């Protein structure tokens, strides 16, 4: 039976040195959080970093934790691009969490998919596509997951209004007695 995975903050220095040596100029920045480090890269470079984190013998970030996105459209601090896709990983050997923040441009938001590295990225990337409209190249089945299949738009974008774009009012209502649809407002 393996020993429990315990947090070892001292190993963060190994991680930072390794990632900085591997990424060099391509690393846009690094931020220290409460108990982990966040590495900022461009969307196109994210896959290389993720593969390095997973496959490097002394790092071993084999535990997928989460993938999500943020829309920085109305954020008070300027960001490199409008969207950021954030992957959270854990290394059982080092006892360290790490985040990869991949910036994706506004015009044609797309970046390579991580599904061939981590099986857990499949549904989480589908969710990001569904709610933010960020396309993941090489994803085996990029379809809507939470919203209905015929839904238009990506509701978690900051320019999407909270009350929707009239979807609620325009639902066809079937009357119980006449069985005929009565169009919405």
């Amino acid at each position, binding site marked *: 039976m393996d020993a429990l995975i315990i947090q070892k903050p001292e190993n963060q220095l190994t991680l930072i040195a390794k990632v900085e040596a591997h990424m060099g100029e391509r690393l846009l920045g690094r931020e220290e959080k409460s108990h982990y480090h966040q590495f900022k890269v461009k969307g196109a470079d994210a896959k290389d970093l993720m593969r390095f984190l997973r496959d490097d013998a002394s790092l071993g970030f084999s535990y997928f934790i989460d993938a999500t996105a943020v829309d920085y459209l109305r954020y008070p601090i300027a960001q490199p691009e409008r969207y950021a896709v954030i992957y959270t990983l854990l290394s059982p050997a080092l006892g360290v969490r790490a985040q990869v923040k991949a910036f994706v441009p506004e015009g044609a938001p797309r970046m390579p998919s991580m599904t061939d590295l981590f099986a857990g990225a499949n549904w989480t990337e589908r969710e990001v596509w569904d709610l933010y409209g960020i396309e993941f190249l090489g994803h085996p089945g990029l379809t809507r*997951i939470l919203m209905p299949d015929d839904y238009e738009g990506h509701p978690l974008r900051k320019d999407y209004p909270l009350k929707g774009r009239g979807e609620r009012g325009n639902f066809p209502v079937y009357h119980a007695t006449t069985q005929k649809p009565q169009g919405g407002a």
Partner: protein
Amino acid sequence: MYSYEQEVVERSENTVHMNVGPSHPAMHGTLRVKMEVKGERIIRTEQEIGFLHTGFEKLGEHRSYNQFITLTDRLNYFSPLSNNIGFALACEELLGITVPRRCQVIRTILAEMSRLADHSLCVGAMTMDLGAFTSILWTFVEREKLYDVFEAVTGTRLTTSYTRVGGLAFDLPADFEKRVTLILDSMEKTLDNLRDSFYQNRIFLDRTEGIGCISKEMAMAYGITGPMGRASGVPYDIRKFRPYMIYNELKFEVPLYETGDTLARYKVRIDEMVQSISLVRQAMKLLEPGPINYEDQKRTLPDKTSTYRDMESLIHHFKLVMPGDDHGIHPPLIDQYSSTEAPNGELGWHLVSDGTSAPYRVRIRPPSFINYPILSKLLEGAMLADLVAILGSFNIIAGELDR
């Protein structure tokens, strides 16, 4: 010329499409599985979710931090207190504050009690899916007692909304310790009964042993955490990885199994309940009188009695509750991931703050959403009846799956 034998052969060669859910008694909520079946063997499956999508994350961007706590009740609705506590801890980490000792002890006790409630329902429902009806009545009785205590503490059974950023809504009732001690004793008897009834039960073992095996590597690549991960031998528990509240002072073990099958997932939950009972007992000894809210009233809501009687508290209450940029809690402009060990696994919160009273982005990392996709893989080549056994051991809660 018609021949019965030939029809049997032809039928067994053709695949049939079958649909289970989204509204089916065995599906534990609004889950839908589309299957291609040959005889009783499942060839291929496709899962569909999203029937309970409520847009919590979008709503969260338009609510203040304290208002969002009411939405966390509706995530994993078998253990709402765990979600309340997880979100409050995430906000406190964002603000960089530590709550008083009594608050931490109360939160630990309630988190473990909600783990007991969640696991007892999962264990009972899983055996009921496999045909054992008595066990769910046993576990329901225990859960009902726990819910009575939750009602006495929080005022409601399900939508507890008990925590506040930097504290709790109110203190424990007077007879709390006495009531909980009684429950823990009867809970132990129920656990003994469950072990006696199922660990040697041939019918139960045939349905669960070696069914739906998840290997350790597979579990880590899919990001499976919590009891499901530990049944597959992933030694990961956030209470040990990064102890929060008072877990570093309490003695407990993390049950681990290697096989990763449905039986292991059942046993892990039973063993975790034993640990939770001991954790609640240990934490109750540490319960001492003291304040329950963080002292800085610019960031923590004052308790209700002083709001009504004391001018200064009323002003603080007003400043925190009213909408607008001048009011509310204003965390620094950072983004932060923090997580707690919820009954189903890692419940993570990725909060992005833009300095206003409402979060800029609330990402909920629900354990059910990350644990569920592997089902399709497990069902390939499995028997039709395995679906309910495997799904029962996953304990998928549609509320946090679809958010």
